[in-house]
């Protein structure tokens, strides 16, 4: 189990650029020829954020008391209900944290996707980079404002959604 755990943590440990390069090599051929698509960028971002997010959610789940789940079972709740009524609502704080964390760092990342992005499908951070390096500071500052606003509003909205459904969790 420890080995599996270590391997699953690799995307977070390996420096982003190498992780991206690895994707280029791994998915450059049949059966999964993904290089140059938007999918490979998405997949790379997802797997890079997964270990950290899992840790956060795992942490909020281990705080659920065994007696709480046993009481639910005792009162007649089958496993599905325990998942729906107990485990999910009680891990909302972890879900919220890992979602916003993953979203914001994906919005601002460059390292791991630098070799995966095609010129025709640039992400916002790359456009920003190009603008800065060609001296268009005014446009660059507008774009960075937009990125900041998007990140802020997503985290505010998700906070609202998660808070409403977990109003009793302190």
């Amino acid at each position, binding site marked *: 189990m420890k080995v599996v755990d270590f391997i699953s943590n690799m995307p977070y440990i390996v420096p982003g650029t190498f992780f991206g390069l690895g994707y280029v090599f791994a998915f450059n051929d049949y059966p999964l020829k993904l290089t140059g698509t938007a999918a490979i960028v998405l997949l790379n971002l997802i797997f890079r954020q997964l270990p950290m997010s899992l840790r956060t959610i795992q942490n909020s789940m281990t705080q659920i008391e065994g007696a709480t789940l046993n009481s639910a079972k*005792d009162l007649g*709740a*089958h496993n599905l209900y325990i998942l729906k009524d107990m485990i999910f609502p009680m891990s909302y704080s972890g879900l919220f944290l890992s979602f916003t964390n993953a979203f914001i760092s994906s919005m601002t990342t460059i390292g791991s996707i630098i070799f995966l992005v095609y010129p025709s499908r640039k992400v916002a951070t790359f456009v920003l980079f190009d603008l800065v390096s060609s001296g268009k500071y005014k446009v660059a500052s507008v774009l960075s404002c937009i990125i900041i606003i998007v990140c802020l509003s997503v985290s505010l909205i998700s906070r609202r959604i998660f808070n409403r459904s977990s109003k009793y969790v*302190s």
Partner: protein
Amino acid sequence: MFLEIKNLTKRYNRIEAIKNISFTAEEKEIICILGPSGCGKTTILQSIGGFIKIDGGEIILDGEHVENLEPEERNIATVFQSYGLFPHKSVLENITYGLKFRGYRKKDALMEGMKMLEVLNLKGYENKKVTELSGGEQQRVALGRALIVKPKLLLLDEPFSNLDTKLRVTMRKELLRIRDHFNITMLFVTHDQEDAFSIADRIIVMNKGKIEQIDTARNIYLNPKTEFVLNFVGSANVDRGYFIRPEAIKLSPEGEEATVVGKTFKGFFIEYTIEYNKNIYKMIRLSSEEEFEIGSKIKIEMGMRKI
């Protein structure tokens, strides 16, 4: 018999936590399992509740074998030591949760819940968070949540261990009142002798996974069957298979002579150490009675009894 436990056995890594446990309970009876930490009392409770798989034995509740059923299928409710309340639900939601699986409409469930709150003297608390409640209130919520599904048997795991001394006394009375109100059979586990003596109809004294004695509180104290029971319940002077409780040593003008060698004031009673026949004995007298100084001679009558 309403509840029948036959030859219950549970092993953890081949070590027997409980071995061949058998006992019975009548309807509306309060049975207490009393024993030191690690004697297997919680294991018994969890086996009956269905939270651990047993390695052998039968559990018959009201004529029905339940040992192979899942906890949610058994007509048994448990109040856990840490209560296990649902922290993300309100008091009323906690109490009515079990009704969700018993075909109640939401409106009826809420009505039942309000009735239960009234019985438990928790009216006005329905929309509070359970984390805002005091220990005694949390316990009553846990009780209400278990009782609302009308179980045939209520299991309580160390129910008073998180409460202070005053609150314990109140909750013991409360538990007896609830028993009379719901006519329910209860089985509870404790290491506290006072809990057991105050509310149990019969007490099961356990040690190292085995039952030492099943009897009423009076018999457990006055006629202990083994040395373990004798020493676990109260204190005793033991001499070659004979015993006497410290408070049973009587003063009498015709008695034999003994010397007071030590004394400790303990509030309502005074504990003396006395020397008699070259042996040291513990003796207890009420502090309102005549007091003896260390070194003084007293006349005592010592009715030692066989264990």
